[in-house]
C-alpha cells in the first residue's frame, strides 16, 4: 500500500475503490484498502483477513472476464459503512470459480458492503448469486462444475 492516500469520507473512499475496480486497476483499488481488511465473499465461500485475499478476488474476476464492465447503480452511505449495488458484465476468457471457459457473456447483479475507517476499507462483504453466474456460464450441476 502506498503512503499517499488522502483520508476521505467513507463515500469518497469507497467511490475511489469502485472507480479503480471499474477501470480494472487492481493496484489503485487496493490503495484504499487496509492491509488487515476482513474479506467475505459469500458466493465464493471466501472468509479471510488481509489485503491479498481481496486482491485475489479482484484479480480472479479480471482474469476470468478481462472485458469486465462494472456499472454502479446505487451507493448507500450509512455512517462509516457504504453499500454499493452494481452489475458486473463480462465475457469469460478463462476458467472462473471452477467453471471452464465457454466464452459466454454474463451479467450479475451484486451488492458490496464496505466498512471504512480513516480513509481505508477495513471490511468488505460481497453478495451475489452463484446460481445466476453458473446458469449464465452453462454449468449444469454444482457437483460437476467443470463439466460444461
Amino acid at each position, binding site marked *: 500500500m502506498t503512503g499517499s492516500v488522502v483520508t476521505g469520507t467513507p463515500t469518497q473512499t469507497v467511490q475511489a475503490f469502485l472507480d479503480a475496480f471499474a477501470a480494472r486497476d487492481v493496484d489503485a483499488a487496493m490503495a484504499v484498502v487496509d492491509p488487515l481488511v476482513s474479506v467475505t465473499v459469500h458466493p465464493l465461500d471466501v472468509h479471510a483477513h488481509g489485503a491479498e485475499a481481496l486482491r485475489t478476488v479482484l484479480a480472479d474476476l479480471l482474469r476470468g472476464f478481462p472485458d469486465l464492465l462494472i456499472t454502479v447503480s446505487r451507493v448507500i452511505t*450509512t455512517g462509516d459503512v457504504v*453499500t454499493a449495488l452494481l452489475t458486473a458484465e463480462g465475457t469469460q476468457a478463462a476458467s472462473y470459480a471452477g467453471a471452464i471457459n465457454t466464452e459466454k457473456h454474463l451479467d450479475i447483479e*451484486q451488492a458490496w458492503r464496505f466498512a471504512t475507517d480513516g480513509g481505508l476499507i477495513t471490511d468488505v462483504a460481497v453478495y451475489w448469486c452463484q446460481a445466476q453466474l*453458473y*446458469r449464465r456460464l452453462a*454449468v449444469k450441476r454444482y457437483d460437476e462444475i467443470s463439466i460444461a
Partner: protein
Amino acid sequence: MTETTSTKQTRTADSAAAVVTEFFDCYRAHDVDRMTGLFSINAGFRYVPVEMWGKQRVLRGEGTVGTVGKPLWAGLIASFPDLSNTVHTVLSNDDGDVVVQADIKGTQQGAWGLITPAGKHYSEPHLFIFHVGPDLLIDSITGYWNDAGISKQLGHNEVD
C-alpha cells in the same frame, strides 16, 4: 380552531431502522399480514437471485410486495415451517435507507421451486436494502443472497 397534538413520528435513521427491525420480528413470527402491513400499498419488491428460465422468457422475483413479496413469503413459510432469521446488522440513514445483514434459515418440509423436500436445513447470509418513506412505511425492499448455497444445502445439485 381546535389545536390537536400530533403523535406522528418523524423519519430518522433510528425510526427507519426500527420499522425494518419490526419487519424481521414479524417474519420470525410468521406473521405475513403484519409484515406486509409495514409496507406502503405499492411498495417495490425485488429479490435479485429469484429467476426462473423458461424457453422463451425469464420470470424474475420482481414486482410489488402485495403481488410478489407476500405470496413468496407465505410460500417460503409453508415449505419451511421453522423458517427463521438472525439479524446481524441494521444500518440506516436519515434518508430512510436501511441496510440489513441477516441469515435466513429453515428446514424444508414442502416443495420449493424445483427442490423436492428432503427434510434438510439451510442457513444462508442475505443482504437486504430497504427504503422507508417519510410516513414510516417501507416503500421498497431488495434482497441479495447466493441461491446456489441454499440449493446445495437442501441437496439439490442441479443448476436450474
